[in-house]
């Protein structure tokens, strides 16, 4: 391959079919020329493209099983079409409103109890003048982000296990009450949220710290000259400085409102708390992978993907309307 000057490449000239036969041939030649000229670059992409084709696009096509009575023996092609039968069944089932309600409730809780601690931690870190202390605290607080949910579950277990947990034992010995927090409906969501704060707040604060670092120092000087105290500075300079990042993240999260944190919920979930803890994703997993009811599970999955897609695209439009740059 001869050396090419980047930028000197032949451009696509358009679809061959739309042109006269002679022009079509030239266009075809141009395509071949492009392929030859950049053959290394195209070859490099092949493994990655195959990956996307097989493990992303074929599964999307596989969603047709939501409209079929999928049968393991017959495969996707031969299983009979049933139209919207599965959708009717799902939307009529008494499980569905509960799943939707649990998913939305948990998501909304997470928006409040994830985003606020992130902002608060960033604001506090921002006020810390002693450098070594600030760095130490940052290092400590974002550490748990790298631990798996299983490990977090293990730690939770060390505190709350019915017979042996630190807190449970203490309460039993001092107050004579035996606690069953891990299987308690009232406690399921608070435990999820608290462990989520423990694991993710430090890391979540990073993006706000980055935004805070870009605030023009002169704004603070001007505020001080105008007689602003600490709170006024916070209100008029600091908070406006992170507003855009906050709104962007908020909109993103609203776009993902039907993802209520599958991995964590699945690990903390047990049969006694299904009523408050079963979300769309955990239901799909149980119904599909554990009970091999692929079609119904795929139907619910398709519903979730479609709603999620519409929400993300809408959220991005809204973000752009707000004057932000949107996510893409």
């Amino acid at each position, binding site marked *: 391959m001869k*050396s090419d*000057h*980047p*930028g*000197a490449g*032949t451009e696509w000239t358009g679809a061959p079919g739309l042109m006269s036969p002679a022009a079509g041939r030239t266009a075809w030649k141009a395509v071949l020329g*492009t392929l030859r000229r*950049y053959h290394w670059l195209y*070859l490099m992409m092949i*493994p*990655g493209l195959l990956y*996307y084709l097989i*493990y*992303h696009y074929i599964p999307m*096509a*596989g*969603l047709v099983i939501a409209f079929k009575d999928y049968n393991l023996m017959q495969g996707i092609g031969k299983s009979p079409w049933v139209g919207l039968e599965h959708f009717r069944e799902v939307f009529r089932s008494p499980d569905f409103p509960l799943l939707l309600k649990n998913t939305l409730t948990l998501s909304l809780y997470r928006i409040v109890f994830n985003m606020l601690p992130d902002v608060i931690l960033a604001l*506090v*870190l921002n*006020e810390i003048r*002693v450098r070594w*202390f600030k760095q130490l*605290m940052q290092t*400590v*607080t974002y*550490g748990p982000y*790298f*631990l*798996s949910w*299983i490990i977090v*579950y*293990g*730690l939770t*277990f*060390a505190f709350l*296990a019915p017979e*042996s947990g*630190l807190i449970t*034992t203490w309460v039993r010995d001092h107050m004579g009450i035996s606690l069953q927090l891990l299987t308690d409906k009232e406690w399921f969501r608070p435990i999820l949220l608290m462990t989520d704060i423990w694991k993710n707040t430090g*890391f979540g604060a*990073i*993006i706000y710290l*980055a935004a805070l670092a870009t605030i023009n*120092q002169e704004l603070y000087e001007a*505020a*001080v000259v105008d007689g602003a105290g*600490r709170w006024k500075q916070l209100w008029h300079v600091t908070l406006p400085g992170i507003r855009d990042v906050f709104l962007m993240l908020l909109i993103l999260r609203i776009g993902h409102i039907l993802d209520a944190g599958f*991995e964590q919920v699945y*690990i903390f979930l047990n049969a006694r708390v299904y009523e408050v803890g079963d979300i769309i*994703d955990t239901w*799909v997993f149980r119904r*599909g*992978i554990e009970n091999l009811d692929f079609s119904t*599970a*795929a139907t619910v*999955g398709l519903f*979730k*993907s479609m709603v999620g897609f519409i929400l*993300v*695209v809408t959220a991005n439009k809204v973000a752009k309307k707000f004057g932000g740059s949107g996510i893409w």
Partner: protein
Amino acid sequence: MSYVLKKTKADRAVDTVLYSGLALFGLATLFPLYYVMVMSVTPIAEVLRNGGFVLWPDRITLDAYRYIFASDRIPDALSITVTVTLLGTLCNLVITSLLAYPLSKKYLPGRNAVLVSIVFTMLFSGGLIPLYLVVSATGLLNTIWALIIPGLVSSFNMLIMKSYFENLPAEVEEAAKVDGCSDLQTLLRIVLPLSMPIVATLGLFYGVNHWNAYFGGIMYLTDKSLMPIQVVLRSMILTPSVSQELGLNVQDLQQLPPETIKMAAVVVATLPILIVYPFLQKYFVKGMLLGSIKG
């Protein structure tokens, strides 16, 4: 940063609240890890004497660890996880950079179509069930490849790498091409060595993901001997008596309470990350910041 000329009394009060509040949060972050570690090495007699609460054990015992490593279950799971982490991260990095490099060339015809179809997969997916059917159809069930191939490229990481490549000085690559390097040689000899910060960052992201991976195990594997450490850890935590889970006889070793063994297993699964983390922390933060700047 607020601009304070002279500290008033109120300022000092606010500072006290902020510093101590932050210190408390820091302690609350560290305490569970410390507690689990202490529990895993404290002799049971001492735990009982103190009503389950030991902050600083008088005597340390490694019995629980001996117990864990007496059975094959955890060592096997660890070796699966180490294999998947090393092999998987290598595959991730190779395929991700091979894809990111061509896509960083703005003059490459067809580039936008590829980018759009990759971004689309970040917004819409077939979901769990169709993916499972494809993994099954491609023959990955019950092989460790099921833990590697379905997550070969993270679109997000690929986009970070692509924008890093775009910001490299074009002159260096042009010079390499004038000297007769093909695109592949340019990538391997010039571009990647210049991109070590981003390669390290993504390697760490991918690596931690493999180490923590759990779902691949329960979705695609039924063979117990292939289960990664996180899956084994969970079933240990949930089993009332650990000896059964590990296939060991309780009488084999001293009477250890199952909780001590569970805590030791948590520590074993956490330790590699705790050891690696302080060294790699600054890379992670850089990578995170890079990622938050849109590509």
